[in-house]
């Protein structure tokens, strides 16, 4: 009965899980607002437009949603503040799953691993606004499929 109720209600909003603030619906076919913090090689703000591995991933992600990207640069602290107040949809900047901001943002699954200069494994993630679960799941699904493709590419 519960699953029926869930199915009916999900049918109304279009997504299950749904976003309390409707991020995925708003972004699709429209504008994705991305905060970028400089952190090479993942993100770079040295050029005219943002560049780097994560920037390339997000450009690809936006195209799957048929969305234009609106970039905002700043320190992670500034960007988290903007995200919390709904002025941004997500943040990139070489974040890891150990980021001290994890109580204020929603983190994706790790999409890549690197080893830092101290020999510790860094699991790389991106941040979305807290509780925007439909958008988060969309991004997770995209990043995981990209990660699988790149792993497949390396092994071949």
């Amino acid at each position, binding site marked *: 009965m519960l699953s029926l109720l*869930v199915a009916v209600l999900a049918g109304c909003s279009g997504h299950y*899980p*749904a976003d309390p603030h409707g991020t995925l619906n708003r972004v699709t076919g429209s504008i994705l607002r991305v905060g970028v913090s400089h952190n090479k090689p993942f993100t770079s703000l040295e050029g005219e437009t943002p560049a780097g591995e994560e920037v390339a991933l997000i450009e690809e992600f936006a195209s799957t949603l048929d969305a234009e990207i609106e970039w905002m640069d700043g320190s992670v602290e500034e960007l988290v503040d903007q995200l919390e107040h709904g002025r941004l949809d997500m943040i990139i900047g070489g974040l890891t799953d150990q980021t001290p901001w994890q109580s204020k943002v929603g983190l994706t699954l790790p999409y890549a691993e690197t080893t830092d200069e101290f020999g510790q494994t860094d699991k790389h993630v991106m941040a*979305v606004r807290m*509780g925007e*679960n439909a958008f*988060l*799941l969309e991004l997770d699904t995209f990043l*995981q499929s990209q990660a*699988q493709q790149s792993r497949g590419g390396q092994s071949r």
Partner: protein
Amino acid sequence: MSAERSRDTEHMPADVAEVMRKAVRLEWITIAVLVGIVIIVYLAMGNSQAMKTAWIEDMLSFIPPIAFLIGVRVTRRPADAKHPFGYHRAIGISHVVAATALVVMGAILIGDSALKLIRIEHPTIGGIQVLGTTIWMGWLMMAAMVVTAIPPIILGRMKLKLAPQLHNKVLYADADMNKADWMTSLSALVGVAGIGLGWWWADAAAAIIIATSILKDGIGNLRAAVAGLIDARPTTFDSKHTHPLVDEVDAHLQQVDWVRSAAARIRDEGQVFHVEGFLVPETPGAATPENLEAVRRQLFDLDWKIRDVTLSPVTELPNVLETQPEA
């Protein structure tokens, strides 16, 4: 005093001993099941704060069965010169511990959930990789909650059947803990389903409703446990009614032929009772040691729970017993 009584170990009739063996086995099964549940919830919890709270509650659920097993083991020790009343009260201490675990669990859950509502905290649940595809982690959490809700329902019901036969209030408190377990699982299930619908408050709201009932159970058990330790009049295992033996003992003492009036006060030692009987004889010479010993034996035969009896011939009954309200 008969020889077997004087050993004062926690022996009991064969049928009751069999129930006790079942209860002990049930508590070991409970601990084994809880270990499984704790592992499942740990694996399904990810970064979710809500699931972390559920996990801490599961850890608290270990306390009542462990308290029961230790309590039962300790009561079996025979009385000795240093412990002339035996170790029966260990059950009472176990009951306080188990009840406190329930209270703490309810209080943590209410506080944690209220804080989430006040902070307008939107629970974030993303995807998880299962067999190469990304699915919503909420589905996995809901599945985990269904799996973890079923064993406590069964175990709790089995304990509720055994608790009255043993007059064991720890077992009863543990059955309440099992009820608390499956109800929190159910509330987490509803909460996660609600989060999926975009209702960020669903998880915390469901938890508060459930936690209120857990806290109520805990406080009820704690009151009963404390009442037992301060020698309140014995009650039935669920602490709702005066124990029938209270009236039975009084009635038995009053019908003794050489007694004019009589009353008893009874201590609930956990599983067994200690009786202090006051007898006003018809004639001063009637209360001979032989007559008193005969009455003691009759009381022992009344019920296995009556473990020790002290009888005092008196000229008038103590005030508290005379004014005792009819139950």
